[in-house]
């Protein structure tokens, strides 16, 4: 993902005020983006029950701005891979990820998505990071809702500290 992006190198010197705003731009956009995650739940297995639990009232991912699932990849920016991915499903998962617009992040929910879990056999992919880049891994079979919330918060920290390329190479 990051290899495709172009680092910002302003060719001409701007005024000091502009420079100052440019240095704080990532902070501002990161702050905005980390509270407006639109997850796409790619739910394939029993971790889905835990996903429902973490989304609904007692735990409530809406507190982190990550509650509203978009059921089309084109409207979402966080791919939550919830459950076992088989080799037969891998092309579907990859297509969903490719259809998501930048910026996009991936959260591996549960031990199967993280590493294949105990399904070390002909059918299961041994971790989705073999086919697409993963930002946060949440292990557990299934993970406790607190672990998922911790994972989302780790992702928020990551987003807040990322460089955000929004306009073009002159900004």
């Amino acid at each position, binding site marked *: 993902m990051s290899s495709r992006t172009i680092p910002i190198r302003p060719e001409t010197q701007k005024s000091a005020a502009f420079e100052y705003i440019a240095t704080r731009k990532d902070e501002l956009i990161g702050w905005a983006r980390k509270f407006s995650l639109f997850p796409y739940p790619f739910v394939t297995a029993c971790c889905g029950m835990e996903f429902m639990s973490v989304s609904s009232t007692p735990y409530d991912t809406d507190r982190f701005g990550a509650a509203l699932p978009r059921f089309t990849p084109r409207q979402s920016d966080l791919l939550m891979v919830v459950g076992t991915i088989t080799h037969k499903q891998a092309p579907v998962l990859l297509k969903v990820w490719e259809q998501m617009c930048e910026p996009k992040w991936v959260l591996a929910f549960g031990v199967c998505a993280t590493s294949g879990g105990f399904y070390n*056999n002909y059918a299961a992919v041994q971790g989705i990071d073999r*086919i697409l880049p993963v930002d946060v891994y949440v292990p557990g079979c299934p993970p406790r809702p607190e672990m998922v919330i911790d994972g989302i918060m780790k992702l928020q920290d990551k987003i807040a500290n990322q460089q955000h390329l929004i306009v073009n190479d002159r900004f």
Partner: protein
Amino acid sequence: MSAIFERIREALASRAGEVSVAHGVLVLQVAPGAVLEVAGALKEDFRFDLFLDVTAVDWLPREPRFEVVWHFYSTMHKLRVRVKARVAEAEPVVGSLTGLYGSAHFMERECHEMYGIVFSGNADLRPILLYEGFKGHPLRKDYPKEREQPLVPYREGYEMPGGE
């Protein structure tokens, strides 16, 4: 319970080999060529109207290597019958039950892809749970447990395990 089993035992004595009762299930050990006949008799004469499953057992060092196992249920008698036939690795062929039971189509496809048993008479033995291009039969004992046959190329840094 045993009255029906006794009648089946008598009627199929000539075609079935070893006959026994295990855990309340009648077990018929038959030759691969006699499976169609035995299943037909079970369905038509003894009202075993529900075809439950067909699967296989891989007894690797043993010869003949595979044992194909069918299960039937009678909704009238509320009894189960298990039919077993041993086939060799060189010629793992048994007759298809698709003419008798429509549900045999899917189950024979699964047994075919997982164990490589060929059901002669079933024209559609495409993979049903696996994907096109999968090499080998994963539930055979000599299929390497950790072999991966991915459909999408792995990312850099992750070794692509050999398909064969």
